[in-house]
Every structure is written in structure tokens, then in C-alpha cells.
């Protein structure tokens, strides 16, 4: 027992203590950095994201420039490092540019769902009562649809388009995030420290801001990151069906669709966009897994 007794200690100086990087998230990041799988996944994601952002500088050719005489070149053709597509456009450039739309369409819905779902779930969980009933019963209804069906039904009725696909996917993920947020918040709400805060005379908004959000957003965030992989697959899937982006925009799912005709002539080239979706999706999954186990260690 190291209890400091301060009978003869000098009067304390009023200086707010520095947080010496011993905070919760610092610990999570430190543990994450020690997980080789998660680090590899993070590096891959970073590379894909950077390539997408700096596509004009990285891509060797114009992703829109087609050439009737250079269609469906195999991988390794000089000038077409990863071959060319059915319209003679450079595959490597299109894959690099394609990351832009694919990532936005995959990540943005999860981000929106994280914001909306956290709001709804925390409100339902902290307020309880009739507000909880209304929100959670509505969530149950949306849960009654398999997510792929709901995404396709919504973007099918809203009509093809990138924005509609993002809206549809957001609607798919909001109920899932809300459920997690609600259950985490309900647990936190009954903790002694929340009661202690109430005893201090704090109002519900102050308590939620100071004591609830800090403890629930982490778990909700980790859950949300596990949705990115599904979201990437679904978003590209919508484009694959013709419900997302439209030609000639480079997007991995759409490229996969238009290259379907080439599976007999250039199978390797035709499969390439899928490899990109696969690699991105699995990297997000592994990173999310790593993040979860880094957070599971008792804080």
C-alpha cells in the first residue's frame, strides 16, 4: 500500500496536471502498434487511401482515355502495367482512381451511420422510457430486413446514383449502430459514477457529454469500424448491379461489372477490381479486429 501521508507536506500549488499520454486512447494505440497484423492492415489501407487522394500524381495514365486498338491487353503489357480494360483504358490508373469513389461510398455511409446511430442510441439509452421504446421499436423494424436486401431495395427504389447508394447504405447501418449504442449507453447509465455525477447536481446533457460519451463512443466506434468492410463490399456490390456509380467513372464494383464480358479473354484483368475490393475489405476487417482486442484490455 503506497498511501501518501502529507502531514508535513507543503501547501499544494494550483497547477492543472498534465496528462502524460497515459490516457485511455494512448494505451489503445500503443497496444495496436504492437499488433503486426493490425499494423500491416493499417499500412495497406493508408497506401490505398494515399494513392486515391494523390491519384493524379500517382496514376501513370488518364483513367478516362480509351483506345479502340488497345483493348483488353494482358497484365504486363508495356505501357499497361496491369493491362487495359474493355475500352482500352489503363487498368492501373483506373484502379488507383477507382479507390476514390469506392472508399467514399464504402466509408461515408458508416461514418454517417456512426453519427446518426450514436445520437439515436445514446438518446434512447440514456433517456429510457417512451423515447427508448419509439427509437428501438423502429430499429427493430429495420432489423427485420436482411441488410443486403434493404440496401438494394432502397437504392433500387431511390434510383441509381452515388448519393442514393450512400443514403441507402446509411439507412442500412444506422439501426445496427443504434442497437450497439443503446446497449452500451444503458450499461453506462447505471454505473455509480453516472449516479455520482447526478448527485453532483449535473443536468442530463452535461452528464452525457462528460461521463457517457467518453465511455460509449469508443465501443460504438470500434463496432462501426467493423462495418466498413461490409459497407465496402455492399457499396461496390450496388455499383456492380448498376445501382451505384455510372460509367465512365472508375469504381471497383462497376469495373468488375463491365469487365464481366472479358472473363473468357482476359480473366486476370477481369478479376483485378475484385482483388482491390477484397484487399481493402479484409484490411479494414483485420484493423477493426486489432482495434477491438487492443481496447478489450482492462483500462
Amino acid at each position: 500500500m503506497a498511501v501518501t501521508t502529507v502531514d508535513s507536506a507543503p501547501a499544494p500549488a494550483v497547477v492543472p496536471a498534465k496528462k502524460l499520454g497515459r490516457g485511455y486512447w494512448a494505451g489503445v494505440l500503443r497496444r495496436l502498434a504492437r499488433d503486426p497484423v493490425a499494423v500491416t492492415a493499417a499500412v495497406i489501407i493508408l497506401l490505398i487511401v494515399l494513392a486515391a487522394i494523390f491519384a493524379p500524381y500517382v496514376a501513370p495514365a488518364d483513367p478516362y482515355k480509351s483506345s479502340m486498338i488497345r483493348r483488353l491487353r494482358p497484365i504486363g503489357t508495356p505501357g499497361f502495367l496491369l493491362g487495359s480494360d474493355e475500352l482500352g483504358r489503363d487498368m492501373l490508373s483506373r484502379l488507383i482512381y477507382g479507390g476514390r469513389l469506392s472508399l467514399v461510398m464504402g466509408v461515408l455511409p458508416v461514418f454517417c451511420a456512426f453519427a446518426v446511430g450514436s445520437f439515436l442510441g445514446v438518446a434512447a439509452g440514456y433517456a429510457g422510457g417512451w423515447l427508448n421504446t419509439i427509437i428501438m421499436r423502429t430499429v427493430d423494424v429495420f432489423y427485420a430486413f436482411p441488410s443486403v436486401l434493404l440496401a438494394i431495395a432502397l437504392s433500387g427504389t431511390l434510383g441509381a446514383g452515388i448519393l442514393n447508394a450512400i443514403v441507402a447504405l446509411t439507412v442500412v447501418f444506422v439501426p445496427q449502430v443504434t442497437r450497439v449504442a443503446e446497449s452500451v449507453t444503458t450499461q453506462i447509465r447505471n454505473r455509480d459514477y453516472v449516479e455520482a455525477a447526478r448527485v453532483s447536481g449535473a443536468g442530463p446533457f452535461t452528464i452525457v457529454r462528460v461521463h457517457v460519451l467518453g465511455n460509449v463512443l469508443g465501443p460504438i466506434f470500434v463496432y462501426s469500424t467493423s462495418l466498413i468492410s461490409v459497407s465496402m463490399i455492399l457499396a461496390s456490390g450496388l455499383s456492380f448491379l448498376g445501382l451505384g456509380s455510372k460509367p465512365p467513372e472508375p469504381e471497383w464494383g462497376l469495373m468488375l461489372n463491365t469487365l464481366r464480358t472479358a472473363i473468357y479473354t482476359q480473366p486476370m484483368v477481369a478479376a483485378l477490381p475484385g482483388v482491390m475490393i477484397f484487399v481493402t475489405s479484409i484490411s479494414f476487417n483485420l484493423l477493426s479486429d486489432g482495434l477491438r482486442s487492443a481496447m478489450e484490455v482492462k483500462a
Partner: protein
Amino acid sequence: MLAFTLRRLIYVTPVAIGVTVVCFLLVHITPGDPLTAILPADATLELQEQMKAAYGFDKPLPVQYGLWFWKVLHGDLGHSIATGRPVATEVLRAVKNTLILATVATLIGFTFGTLFGFVAGYFRDSWLDKLASFVSVLGVSVPHYWLGMVLVIIFSAQLGWLPPTGAGPDGSGDWRPDAAHLRYIILPAVTMSVIPMGVIARTVRALVGDILSQDFVEALRAKGMSEFGVFRHVVTNAAPTALAVMGLQLGYLLGGSILIETVFSWPGSGFLLNAAIFQRDLPLLQGTILILAMFFVMLNLAVDVLQTALDPRIKRG
């Protein structure tokens, strides 16, 4: 048990009604009037009004919903705009093909998923666990429509062993359980099985790991029970949850088959849905979604009740 079933049924009813509301509203969030899809582009204003009245679109939304719901209760989902046939018959025929495909896929996925999960859970943190876990991560991360394409490339385009598309040699016909049709289901079913395999493997791994780390297993070993006896205990304890996950996966596959059915031109509900979307055949779209969602709701209910019946630890009288 009966009381529990009834209570679940009462709980599910408002959810099911909510599902019908969402399906009903789907048609009304479409840009423009639902009629524009039916009417010829040069229709007169008078004809438009007539059609509106005929379809009841001039009434307020809740009334429209009531009328529609009443018809749905009597099995009338309207008529397909493209074919003119009743939506209910079209959808049920397609759902049968999807159900066959999804069931086969779930069985394949369950078999391999439990295998991987058991190996991983039993030899936790060994290289076998790492391998099995990695395979299951692959399963949940792979874009299955792409996997379908890859399998077609390998087994149809390159090797020529299996047909790339369709449900049978007779073109657009339904799938039948005979030798000629069997070859057609292999590729789509294997493609589809990858998702439940990954999910079930993850679940079983966690279950087995949990059970093995519990005190009662130590006690059984200490009492001198054989490894086989311990294994049996693990199986009986893991089975209810694993089966429940399998049931839910079947539901997800039923609703999520559209991408795979599109890749393989499988004449199921997903294929139908795809056609309905691109022909803007709204009654067909609405009917397909409604039936698939209702199927999912009922399947969830069945899984919930069965799991309770199977699991001695859950007593919800």
C-alpha cells in the same frame, strides 16, 4: 414453452406490421409518381387522373396503406407491370429456387464453418487456430460476387468442368434435384457458402474457446472423463448457439442472394428483384421485398423459439 412462443409472437407482430409499412412506403419514396412507370409518356392529363383513381393514388396515404394491407392479408400483392402475372405467384416460384440455393449454401458453410471453428477453438492460439481464423476472416471479407466470377473463370472458362450460369440445361427453368441440374448448383452454392462459413467459424471458435475455459470442463477432466467425453460436452453446449447462427445466416442469404444470383443468372428472388428494379416494376419490387422480409422475420422467430427449446440454460417460461 408455449407461453414463451406466444410472447415472442406477440412481440413480433408490431415488427411485422412495421415491415409492411416500410414496404408500402418504399414505393412512395420513388422519385416522381408511382404511376409514371405504368403510364405511356404521352398520356393525357385526363387518363392520368383516371389511372390515379383506379389505383387509389388519389386517396390519403394512410387510407392507401389500409387498402393495400387488406389486400396483402388476402394474399393479393398486385400484378407485375412487366408480365401482368400476379406478383405472389411470381415471387413464390422464385423464392423456391433461392431457398434451395441458400439451404445448400448454408449446409456447406455450416459443415466447413464448424470444422474450422472447432479446430481453432480446440487448439487456441496454435498455428492451426491462426490459419482457421484467417480463413474465416477471408470468408467474411471476400466480395462474394467477385468470388463467383473467379470461380466461373476457373471452373467454367478455364477448365470447362461446370456451367457458368443458369439453373439447368433447359435455360430459364427452375432447379430440380436431378443429376443434370446438380452441376448447375455447385458454383453458386459454393460461392454463397463462403459468408456463413466465415461467420459460423468465428462463432464456433468463440463458443468452443469459452466452454473449454470454463470450470466445469476442468472438473470433468479432473473426474477422469475421456477427451471424447469432454468433446461431447463441448458439442452439446455449443450446438444451440451454432444452430441459431446457422438459421439466421440462412435468412441473410435468402435476402442477400441478389448479387450472386445476378452473377450466375440463377432464377431466384434476387434475380427477380434485379429485373424488377431495372424495369421499374414497382408492384413486383414491393412484393418481392415484402415476402423476403416476412420470411426473415418468421425465420428469426423460429430460431429464437428453437434455441430456447434446445438450450437448457435459457429458462424463459
